[in-house]
């Protein structure tokens, strides 16, 4: 029996006019490309401004002309710009993009807007892993990756598994259970880092390194460290991007997504691995920086709606811009002293988190 309904499979071929009446997605994609291009330009501008600002001021025009090869910088300016500031500014961009993307993935995965790597303990796990790497295996590397980076990744994954198992129930992931489990695990992990100080064979150096990690200081990485971190970020982002449509479907609930043909457990494992790798990248460059993964995805969602396919690239670029500017502020607001960007982020992100919690009360039955 052929009905109007069963003819749908071939209607587009038979009725070219029907195609004209269907809303196209091209306008939306063009808008997204325009937005992403605009954000790319803002990111470049933020990087240039951040390079210019510091104890030694270098004008923006000098930086632009030098980068185009029209002017030679003094040897001192060259060292300051390209060997000290540029790696740090690029590192802050990678950290911001990684944290924002990790926040987006975890929020989609846990189906609530309060999840971020810091709040749910993923960052804490990465810090503990990194501490073990710094203090006990600082000279060890595997396939080009330092033990610190590998242990940060492992710590992040393990913490996610524990928090997720604690918060999960048959009806999904309860937001209260998630926050409580994340808080408890984060606190335990935070305190455990002091144990590593006691185990440290070189306490003076170890304490300083640990302190900077726990407060979130983006140092000046070597070009090799920055390259590896950027490559890992790209791997995680490219793993996550094809899963964004599935993440939209997971918003309907696990069982419904499964009925629609999504391999829920496999998708979830890939997303946890990608989110944990992003967290590890951020932690390996900047230590424990909270709330960036909360603020940026939320802002992007307010602007673009909840479609993760569109959100991922915009969130990555926005996160990079946000942290480049915040880190610039952190190193200049109390000059000549430098405020850890993690501390500044707590001042910005803490009130925002409370605002979000207050506005989510009714929706999440808090």
């Amino acid at each position, binding site marked *: *029996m052929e009905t109007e309904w069963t003819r*749908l499979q071939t209607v587009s071929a038979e009725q070219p006019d029907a195609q004209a*009446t*269907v809303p196209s*997605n091209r306008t939306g994609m063009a808008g997204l490309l325009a937005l992403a291009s605009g954000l790319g330009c803002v990111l470049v501008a933020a990087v240039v401004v951040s390079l210019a600002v510091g104890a030694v001021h270098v004008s923006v025009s000098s930086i632009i002309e030098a980068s185009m090869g029209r002017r030679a910088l003094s040897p001192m300016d060259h060292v300051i710009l390209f060997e000290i500031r540029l790696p740090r500014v690029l590192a802050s961009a990678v950290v911001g993009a990684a944290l924002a993307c990790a926040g987006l993935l975890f929020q989609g995965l846990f189906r609530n807007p309060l999840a971020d790597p810091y709040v749910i303990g993923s960052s804490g796990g990465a810090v503990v892993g990194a501490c073990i790497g710094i203090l006990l295996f600082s000279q060890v590397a595997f396939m080009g990756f330092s033990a610190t980076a590998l242990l940060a990744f492992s710590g992040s994954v393990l913490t996610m598994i524990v928090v997720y198992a604690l918060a999960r129930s048959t009806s999904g992931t309860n937001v209260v259970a998630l926050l409580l489990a994340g808080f408890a695990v984060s606190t335990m992990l935070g305190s455990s880092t002091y144990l590593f100080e006691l185990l440290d064979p070189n306490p003076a150096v170890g304490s300083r390194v640990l302190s900077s990690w726990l407060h979130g200081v983006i140092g000046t990485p070597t070009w090799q460290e920055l390259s590896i971190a950027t490559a890992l970020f790209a791997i995680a982002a490219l793993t996550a991007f094809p899963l964004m*449509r599935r993440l939209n479907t997971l918003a309907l*609930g696990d069982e419904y997504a*499964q009925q*629609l*043909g999504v391999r829920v457990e496999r998708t979830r494992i890939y997303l946890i691995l990608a989110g944990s790798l992003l967290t590890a990248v951020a932690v390996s460059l900047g230590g424990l920086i909270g709330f960036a993964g909360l603020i940026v995805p939320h802002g992007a969602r307010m602007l673009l709606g909840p479609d993760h396919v569109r959100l991922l690239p915009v969130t990555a670029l926005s996160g990079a811009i946000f942290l480049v500017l915040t880190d610039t502020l952190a190193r200049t607001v109390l000059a000549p002293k430098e405020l850890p960007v993690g501390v500044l982020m707590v001042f910005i992100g803490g009130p925002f988190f409370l605002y979000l919690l207050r506005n989510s009360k009714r929706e999440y039955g808090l």
Partner: protein
Amino acid sequence: MTPLLEMRGVGFAYAGREVLRDVNFSLQEGSCTALIGSNGVGKTTLLRLATGSLSPASGEVLLDGLGLRRMARREIARSLALVPQRLEVPFRFTVQQIVEQGRTPYLGRLRGMLVDDRIAVERAMDLARVTSLRTRIFNELSGGERQRVKIALGLAQQPRILLLDEPTQNLDIGRQVELVDLLHLLKAQGITIFASIHDLHLVPGNFEKVLLLGPGQSIVEGTAEDVMTNECLEWAFDCPPGRYVGMRPA
């Protein structure tokens, strides 16, 4: 003629507690069937078994003669759609974004929606009468509007059979009639309907076949007149004689 959906000797238990035992029935293509029974008797479980979300402890569920166990999830989702009792959605998804999820079984990881997918989404929204709601936020809709959006989501899968889990629950009588009219429309489009129904007064005249799931997991099957007798309803719902007369159809 091979039934579109068939259960052969299906049994199921939750953590050792038997919910369904030796369930046998079949649905022909184009039919419209109501599943009735008391609260907790296993109606939702039976629907979940029919979608393949749950695997039977014994027996087999067949879709167009093929065992669900041997079919890929995407393949099942292209033939069969479930409209769940509740759909909780985080974030501010619009109605169109929700309905577009129904195309998931047809999309690859990197393949976006093509013209055919968009036509299917438009047609599903049109049939379920939610086109005018396309830009509204799903979480801000009324119960009746949400129910129609859930049906549109199922229709976007272009299913041959639509399973509905208590679609009239919490709806006022006006919205209930609206929903039953929609089911008639879908049946006229050739879609097989299988719905668990809580409101018994909606069954006669609207569903050509009734499955009554009674205590002891036994099924009574027939027309509304055959199944909805005093004896059957007293037995199935444990309701004292005469107390439900006002609820019965005239």
